[in-house]
């Protein structure tokens, strides 16, 4: 149920989708396709332009209901039949290489080592494999609704632009498909391989 003034959400939907339409050719050249846009949902597919043959591993549905009293709600869906993708169906976890922290001593104390952490922006609950995963990022509804992030409310991010449609799609593109440049095939699995994308 929409609790914010629907006219406000609709205006913001039309404005932000309109901006994307203005640069649609650029977006398509990057592998970002607006498949449909009817308030309150815009559906955008992502293709791997740096990999041949090209894949369309997922689309996202971005729901503007209650935006921007609440952040945008993003779900990962199959581009063709719209079903929400399960973690087992996601061919990428949107890996993001974080800046290494300060050097720490090695175990033997003989030297220092930099530890580089890779954060997966697509997260799910391993104990609930039947539950779809979500984009864990400030500016998304899933992030701010999560109890672990109660100290980082949406209101702190709303004015900064992090939760805008383009900003979120850009991050999904950058970590989800732009860096995909090879296919990983194992006996049990088939996935997309990323070159490393720094934070």
């Amino acid at each position, binding site marked *: 149920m929409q609790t914010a003034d629907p006219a406000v959400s609709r205006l913001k939907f039309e404005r932000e989708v309109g901006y994307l339409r203005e640069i649609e050719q650029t977006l398509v050249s990057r592998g970002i396709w607006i498949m449909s846009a009817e308030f309150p949902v815009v559906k955008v597919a992502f293709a791997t332009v740096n990999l041949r043959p090209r894949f369309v591993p997922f689309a996202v549905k971005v729901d503007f209901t209650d935006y921007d009293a609440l952040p945008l709600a993003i779900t990962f869906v199959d581009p063709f039949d719209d079903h929400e993708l399960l973690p087992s169906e996601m061919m990428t976890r949107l890996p993001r290489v974080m800046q290494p922290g300060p050097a720490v001593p090695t175990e033997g104390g003989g030297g220092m080592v930099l530890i580089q952490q890779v954060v*997966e922006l697509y997260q799910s609950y391993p104990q609930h494999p039947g539950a779809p995963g979500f984009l864990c*990022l400030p500016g998304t509804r899933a992030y701010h609704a999560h109890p672990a992030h109660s100290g980082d409310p949406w209101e702190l991010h709303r004015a900064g632009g992090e939760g805008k449609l*383009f*900003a979120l799609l850009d991050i999904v593109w950058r*970590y989800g498909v732009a860096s995909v440049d090879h296919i990983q095939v194992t006996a049990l699995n088939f996935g997309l391989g990323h070159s490393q994308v720094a934070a």
Partner: protein
Amino acid sequence: MTVKLKYAFQVDGIDYTSEDSELDGRQVRSKSGHDPAANYVLIEIHDRYTTSVGLEDPVDLTKEKPIYRSFESDREYTFTVENLGWIWGAAKIAEIDVRTIGKIAADRDIVIEVVGGGEIVVPRGGEIDLSGKGVERIYSRKVVGPAKIHVTFVINGEPTKVEGKPNDQLVKLLEKALKDSENTGQPIGSWQVTDEPGNVLDVTKTLLELGIHEGAILLASLKAGAAG
């Protein structure tokens, strides 16, 4: 113990060594895997000009390490760059080769003077066709471009037009675009600028250095915040 000196030369970017201080053009070709030697033109790269090394020409390795480029060809093309004589072994030469070997600065255009009048500015990353009758003289001149370059920044999806000079740093235009579009809630370091295909641009470089042209579209987006 006697240690034999080794003398170095470079062909096509690869270093080779020789125990002989003097070779000939044929031996340089053979030692660098260009056999049969007679099938290859060998060009020596000097300071701002090039020469051809014949099969029997002596090559002295006791001085500065000679740098060569090889071409599978039996033809040589002669022309001048900045009034210095050049010889090349292919019908085309890359703009970047002329710029690098000729030590032509980034703020200068490379121009071809065509026989019969007229001139052509060689595009960055382009090639010069040496096979026609027209190309004889190549020179450079200060970039004669628009005094100002108009760029569209797409900031978080919203297009904002700004203008700058070719020697302005990109960050200067980004600051102006952020201000004009009232995107001032984030420090400038939180923003990332990409060109249309998605390559990340170094905002400390100038428009000229980045090859940003009139009417370019650049996308500015926020770097991902803390996640997890």
